[in-house]
């Protein structure tokens, strides 16, 4: 599958997929989407890239090892549970703050968002790890 057109398409599509996956992840709290779907999309982008070039190229493009994505993801998910403990609420209670950012309006940030980001990274990392390994074999 080392076709130039496919390679070109994969290279152009990768950033688009990534931005899209982040968007899907962020709006997931209110509309269809979320960490699982976003993670799957991001992974799909890289897998397409890996199929067009090869896995080494794709891993280079990823910059960090997929394993790091998993570690970061799980860490985010765990860290997101801590603020509730400090706030004296039961474990895993969602804690929210509202930021008013000029021009953008009100931005709501909460630990569930952080948790979902952890899910996003974990799913992304896991799928990339699995498929890259299988492809290399």
């Amino acid at each position: 599958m080392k076709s130039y057109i496919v390679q070109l398409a994969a290279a152009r599509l990768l950033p688009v997929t990534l931005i899209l996956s982040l968007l899907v992840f962020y709006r997931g709290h209110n509309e269809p989407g979320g960490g699982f779907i976003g993670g799957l999309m991001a992974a799909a982008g890289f897998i397409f890239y890996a199929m067009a070039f090869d896995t080494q190229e794709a891993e280079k493009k990823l910059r960090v090892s997929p394993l790091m994505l998993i570690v970061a993801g799980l860490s985010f998910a765990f860290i997101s549970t801590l603020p509730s403990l400090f706030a004296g609420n039961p474990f895993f209670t969602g804690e929210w703050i509202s930021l008013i950012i000029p021009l953008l309006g009100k931005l709501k940030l909460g630990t569930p968002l952080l948790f979902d980001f952890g899910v996003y990274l974990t799913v992304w990392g896991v799928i990339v790890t699995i498929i890259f390994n299988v492809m290399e074999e």
Partner: protein
Amino acid sequence: METLLAIVIGLLYAAGVYLLLRRSIVKLILGIMFFSHATNLLIFVAGGLHKGQPQFATDGINAVSANPTDPLPQALILTAIVIGFGITAFFLALMYRFYQATGTEDLDELKEGENK
């Protein structure tokens, strides 16, 4: 529709069972995938079928569609799908190693190998 879906789910399970009982290890994996599809559908149907718009909470009081789809089974299935992917991948890797190590895809050879 529920009756038809029930029959389809039964068929998916039957296909899964039939494939699981094959000696070929590739078919074993297909069987497991049929099982997970069938189970996802089963949970979904058990939650009640409601055609139409997805359910979203609107601001304030719950005043969404009159006949909403139950969100709880959906959440269950969603994670089940992703985990199902992980399991499938794991099985695939396992099968690949099995084939590499034994040179066969016949599960019965496992038993014979053990007796050697």
